[in-house]
């Protein structure tokens, strides 16, 4: 499946407003690849500069691929996962 058929879970919209840091980590994934999700479901928790944020599913579908694993680092602009819309 090409990336154009899936919806990106983008980290930028969850970046804490007052964070100077340009990197963060994924502390926990709550769903595994292949799981069915609904828009607004909790996908993972991220941490940027000691601030936690919940990342939610942007659409109904199947979690196609996790791109940043637990304890993995990401930078601004990164995509954490891709969802295949249902």
């Amino acid at each position, binding site marked *: 499946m090409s990336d154009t058929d899936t919806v990106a879970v983008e980290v930028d919209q969850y970046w804490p407003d007052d964070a100077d840091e340009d990197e963060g980590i994924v*502390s926990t994934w*709550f*769903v*595994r690849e292949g799981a*069915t999700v609904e828009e607004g479901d*909790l996908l993972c928790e991220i*941490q940027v500069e000691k601030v936690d944020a919940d990342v939610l599913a942007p659409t109904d579908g199947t979690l196609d691929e996790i791109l940043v694993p637990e*304890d993995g680092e990401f930078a601004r602009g990164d995509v954490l996962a891709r969802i295949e819309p249902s």
Partner: protein
Amino acid sequence: MAQTQESVVERELTMSRAMVEAIAHEMREDEEVFYMGEDVADYGGIFDSTAGLREEFGYDRIMDVPISETAYLGAAVGAAQAGMRPIAELMFVDFFGVAMDQVYNQMAKNTYMSGGNVSVPMVLTTAVGGYYNDAAQHSQTLYGTFAHLPGMKVVVPSTAYDAKGLMHNAVRDDDPVVYMFHKRLMGIGWMPAPDGPKTPVPETDYTIPFGSADVKREGADVTIVTLGLHVHRALEAAESLAEDGVDCEVVDLRTLVPLDDETILESVGKTGRLVVVDEDYRSFGVTGEIVARVAESSLADLEAVERVAAADVPIPYARPLENEMLPSTDDIEAAVQDTQS
């Protein structure tokens, strides 16, 4: 896609989120349920034990309290006797000393002392455990201290699934329950949990009855009885021992009071070998109690006994020293090997 009632739970939760989900459910169902403690409102609990609750329920039901454990735990006992169902959090179990009269003499005994005229339907939640270099006054588990004194039920969850079911049961219980959650299992960003405590958790409410231990791994050669964080250490040891041909059964107690003797005795009856693992101090504690109960009931079944516990010294701050004195996976493996000779 249509979901059936029996559909597999795909959602996994950390232990802290599972606890919070149960508390939120109980608060929606019963307006007498409220939560108070230090840094539980705006901060959400320093170990995420109340994350998000203040946003939903407001400051009247999620209350930050002044730093006087004796005052607010006493207030919780009074509120419980007056018909409310308080959940009061002792930030670190190590701090119980300053509120010892409220916990030991009031919360635990008022039902008895009043001749049954009052009940004390409260939950005392508290963070326990070490392995993060917080030294002797912030790292204890004190399981034995609380389990020792009659009048309190004592709950120690090891997974998100258990944490939610046990919390529902705790809030609905008409007697005082001490709910001891291990910091290292909560799934906090700055204190990563081992693999294991994060489990699938149903969104609906469910209860796990007290006094029902859970066999987390079945095995034929040795019974490992443990609780809390060390369920996961024992499971890790069991995986490694399996490669050496030693098949371990891991019994997670889940509650110390009431204690599920039956499951322990049944397991030892099968394996003949008992290893008890506890993060609390070795002397006068959980390990001695379990061994004594098995010896009293099933002495003939016992071929070997080992206990693995914290050394009887204050928990050191220095990492190498703390690692040396608290029970490790390697210590469990060595103890199991000792039962095989």
